[in-house]
């Protein structure tokens, strides 16, 4: 072991000197790896960021919440099959609430789009309004920055009160507190009773509550002829482990409620956040990984460059190999010498690549909520050392197998 260490120090010294002496050549060779590492780390940072942004944007959909609706979120096949289904009704909601046990909160939710909101001369156009019940605070995990969420009384009475998101506040109440102030939604006065904390928009901003207004379900009827058209029922199970049981319970209950014959498929859908993740992984995810594979090709090209230059290096130093072998260097020692050299070149490229791509990741950070993840840093260093060893292997093997007699005679 001690002998090995002594020899390895020498091997390291040789590799380091070889790189130092051929500065231009080493720089150019390393460049291939640098470009590869920059491409791969930047790409994977962007991909991690993209997914992060996506997960943030669907986080308002709780992972332990089931969403019962007329059509599934990601409907496949013949659309007419879904279109002809009957709407969910409030009566069905009431019955479902009575029939199921595995839930923490259950809220019927309807929405209306494109409403205009005014406060004195300020206005926001095309706002989304949710009509729901007091349980919505729990199904959607809403936190309030100020004021309160609507109460059971507000909901039952259909009071003209509302909770607003941060984007609305920013537009309509740049200075004063909006709580207990009046706004006009499509010219109907509403009192703001609560302000929701900022959720931050992912790149799929549509899920964010920041730009929304929430009010009692009955009050929404002021803006919509038929609130049942977009009615869904949000069921917070409270425990992700019980999600599947709860789903089965809901499906059985809903089949009874909607009188679905035993030989017919469900005429409703139970959705969950998971479906979004699956959808993401099936579409964006696949494109993203294809992107990684394509950028990894540049690393591959860099590796070919290393292999090429290592072959040159072996040929150039044939005589040196002969001398070393003549005075006692063993096969593995020569093999290791060239492997170390190529691994060192690649590691150097990896380190420089990371130094370059770190500021790049800060630029990405302006658009996506991420910086370069530490595992990617570690992984790319590992990859570059690995690339070095792989691409150096054939040249090193060639060197180690040289016959000392022939190598000494080489000019």
């Amino acid at each position: 072991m001690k002998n090995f260490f002594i020899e390895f120090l020498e091997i390291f010294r040789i590799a380091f000197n070889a790189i130092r002496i051929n500065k231009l050549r080493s720089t150019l060779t390393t460049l291939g790896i640098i470009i590869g590492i920059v491409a791969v780390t930047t790409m994977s940072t962007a991909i991690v960021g993209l997914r992060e942004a996506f997960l943030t944007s669907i986080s308002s959909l709780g992972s332990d919440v089931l969403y019962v609706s007329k059509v599934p979120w990601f409907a496949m096949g013949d659309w007419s099959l879904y279109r002809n289904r009957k709407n969910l009704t409030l009566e069905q909601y009431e019955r479902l609430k009575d029939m199921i046990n595995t839930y923490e909160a259950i809220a019927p939710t309807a929405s209306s789009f494109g409403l205009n909101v005014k406060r004195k001369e300020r206005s926001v156009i095309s706002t989304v309004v949710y009509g729901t019940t007091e349980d919505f605070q729990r199904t959607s995990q809403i936190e309030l920055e100020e004021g309160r969420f609507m109460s059971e009384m507000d909901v039952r009475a259909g009071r003209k009160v509302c909770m607003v998101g941060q984007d609305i506040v920013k537009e309509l109440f740049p200075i004063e507190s909006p709580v207990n102030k009046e706004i006009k939604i499509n010219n109907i006065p509403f009192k703001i009773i609560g302000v929701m904390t900022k959720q931050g928009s992912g790149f799929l901003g549509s899920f964010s509550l920041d730009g929304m207004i929430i009010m009692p379900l009955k009050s929404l009827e002021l803006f919509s002829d038929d609130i049942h058209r977009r009615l869904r029922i949000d069921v917070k199970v409270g425990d992700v482990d019980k999600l599947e049981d709860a789903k089965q319970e809901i499906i059985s209950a809903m089949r009874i409620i909607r009188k679905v014959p035993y030989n017919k498929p469900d005429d409703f859908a139970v959705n969950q956040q998971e479906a979004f993740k699956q959808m993401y992984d099936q579409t964006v995810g696949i494109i993203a990984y294809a992107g990684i594979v394509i950028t990894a090709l540049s690393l591959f090209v860099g590796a070919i460059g290393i292999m090429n230059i290592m072959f040159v290096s072996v040929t150039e130093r044939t005589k040196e190999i002969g001398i070393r072998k003549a005075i006692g260097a063993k096969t593995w020692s020569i093999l290791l010498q060239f492997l170390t050299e190529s691994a060192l070149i690649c590691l150097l490229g990896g380190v420089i690549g990371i130094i370059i791509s770190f500021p790049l990741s800060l630029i990405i950070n302006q658009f996506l909520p991420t910086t370069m993840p530490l595992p990617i840093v570690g992984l790319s260093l590992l990859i570059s050392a690995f690339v070095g060893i792989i691409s150096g292997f054939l040249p090193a093997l060639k060197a180690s197998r040289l016959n000392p007699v022939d190598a000494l005679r080489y000019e």
Partner: protein
Amino acid sequence: MNIINIEHIAKIYQVGSEEVHALRDVSLNIEKGEYVAIMGPSGSGKSTLMNILGCLDTPTKGLYNFTGVNVSQMNDNELANIRNKEIGFVFQTFNLLPRSDALHNVELPLIYAGISSHERKDKARLALDHVGLNDRMHHKPNELSGGQRQRVAIARALVTQPAIILADEPTGNLDTKTGEDIMALFNEIYEQGNTIILVTHEEYIAEHAERIIRIRDGMIEKDEHVKDRYIPKKNGFSKAD
């Protein structure tokens, strides 16, 4: 005691479809402390014999006992170990590492022997001192004259205290005067009890040895002791009386 014992060795190279018999049937003993010159014209097989003696190559047939160990069937790594510990090479073209200084060149065999840095440097300094280069330790080969380079190579050959010193045309790339200096150095090493095998094609170099083995067509033509060999002075030739 026989350091080298060769029995009926042959070396056959396959060149295309033709077999080349570089060595046909060579048997030979060399004892400890001998100073032997191997002579022969080019193509005689003397280089092949030297490669086999130096454990750089193995014979096709026959037996080679080196310091009592059969090395004729050894694999590359075992041979490398023997070369490292028991054989000191001195080549015509010096074969120093061009980018390393004299000290590191001399250290090299000790590195492969796994000796620690401190001990290595001490031994290498001593060996360089021995060949009169203690003021040139940190010079690179291109900063040294031909004779100095060869002396570094000799120091490298001596540093492991090998069983034999194998010198292949050690004066071939040197002028006559420098060559004499080198031969004087070999003489000194010989007188200290080392075994030297000198491969050369020049008669006057061979006559420094006490025994000359002449090779022709892959066989030993003549093996004789030199009656009045040249004993060079430290700085020149002097005929022994």
